[in-house]
């Protein structure tokens, strides 16, 4: 099948706004997980987009924009933390990734949704910071192991193992509670 005409060497300027609109919220959601202030996060995101848009060649060549952008943001946030102590209250090697659960498009959540929110947060909090980040990237951003590996600077094999271990940790949490429930029942 013949490929249709594609004007790659003269990417229209509107592609910038397309890329920006497409990925801004993903970047913001991911960045805020690192416990930085909204201003600092948006500053870092600004730097990431500026770097990408400065080179039209780069924009046309990158195959996986989302992974590239998330990776850039993570690096940028860590760079900023390394150079100025102000953003993170903890030392750089113990930078935490936090998660919270919510529902889109609802101002008031139902009883059932409250239960689910608490459960999901409890499950995520049973993990280490790194595990939380990996689970977030895998199941919220829907990235595959190669992509996770690029962002977290590990091998795909390591990414796979860490996802597996995270699920095990969640299971332990689930079963521990079941055991308590079981014991309580018989008290």
């Amino acid at each position, binding site marked *: 099948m013949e490929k249709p005409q594609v004007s790659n060497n003269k990417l*229209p300027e509107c592609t910038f706004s397309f890329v920006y609109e497409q990925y801004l919220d993903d970047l913001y959601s991911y960045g805020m997980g690192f416990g930085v202030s909204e201003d600092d996060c948006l500053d870092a995101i600004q730097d990431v987009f*500026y770097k990408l*848009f400065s080179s039209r060649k780069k924009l046309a060549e990158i195959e996986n924009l989302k992974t590239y952008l998330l990776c850039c943001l993570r690096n940028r946030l860590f760079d900023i933390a390394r150079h100025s102590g102000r953003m993170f209250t903890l030392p750089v090697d113990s930078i935490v990734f936090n998660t919270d659960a919510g*529902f889109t498009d609802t101002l008031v959540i139902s009883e059932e949704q409250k239960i689910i929110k608490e459960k999901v947060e409890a499950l995520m909090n049973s993990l280490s910071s790194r595990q939380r980040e990996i689970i977030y990237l895998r199941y919220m951003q829907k990235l595959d192991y190669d992509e996770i590996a690029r962002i977290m600077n590990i091998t795909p094999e390591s990414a796979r193992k860490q996802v597996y271990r995270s699920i095990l940790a969640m299971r332990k949490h689930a079963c521990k509670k079941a055991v308590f429930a079981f014991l309580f029942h018989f008290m």
Partner: protein
Amino acid sequence: MDKLRQKENDRIRELISDDLFVEWRLVRSEELNAYWADFIRRNPGYSDALDAASRMVDSVRINERHVPPGIRIALYEKIAGRLRRRRFDMYAAILSVSATAAILVMAAIFGKFVLNDTPDKNVAVQEITTDRYANENILLITDGKVVELENVEEAITIDAEGAIAVTGKDDIIALPEPAKDALSRIVVPAGRRSSMTLSDGSKIWLNSCTELTVPNRFDGRTREITVRGEIYAEVAPGSKPFIVHTPDFNVVVHGTVFNISVYENDGEKFVVLVEGSVSLNIAGGKPVRLEPNQIALVGDAGIEKRNVDVNEYIGWKDGILIFNKAPLSLILTKIGRYYNIAFEAEDGPELMRRRYSGKLFLTGNIDSMMSSVSAITSTRYAIRQDTIHLMKP
């Protein structure tokens, strides 16, 4: 009846209170898939509750945040500003023009309207310019590719499997079975219009200076599209609610045929309902429901509902501009978008404020269209490059 529902609710609550269930919906491992499939086999009565509970848990989002609209734009401006300041980057200048709202230049007025021949030195020239897009062709951005549509007859079709084709071209632009959440964007510059069929069969007409983002396939529980500019839509019936997102409000479609206009530089943004039923949701406000032949005007003062003749608002789709006591400034803005031309008038604001009623056929021929305009407004016109000058007769 109530007892049954209570039992169902109890079952749902039982499931969502089960950590293993929540974990399953989150990670969907094979092991848990098998576990819960087995559970349903042993407890078939739970089947409906399982579906309902699954939907509930699936709607959870972790860390989901949206940058609010005002900050979105401001941040983009900061990026554009930085790019502009880099020397010898002419593209950055175009970036800022196409990114921001249309430029509506109204020169300060010093003089007054003078009826004699000698021109008053202080009468300022009033300009109406339109969104200037760097490209003259309609752009389809999908699957990492940018496709230009040059011919007027080309329309975009998405079939039920998410394959995108352009009528008139033999190639398929985007293959069926697209990646989950794959999006396509259509950018229509001034002077062009387009139409497209979505994967559910809904038909959308796009006016000039419009950007529309749609998923290649409607896989989720809703059908959602995003628009900036103006569209006329005939929504195919379906069980999934159809939602149109605009920068300032959402329109939830319960019925079929409507027109949405959300141009940045227009004072008012609006939705006109032709057939069916829609409701507008604006952040922080109550939803507003529309009946056919009604318009919802979204301005700074809130949402205003009125009964209207819909033809005034949807004529553009067939190349007809109907206006009813509309100020000349608005008429020229619409014509300017349609033909991608700018207007200049020597009479100052008085001419622009005058109201006119009538019908204009927006044919390909600017001259025949302009002769109608001059007849209606009692002006002379002259075309210089891509600007039309309006003068006193």
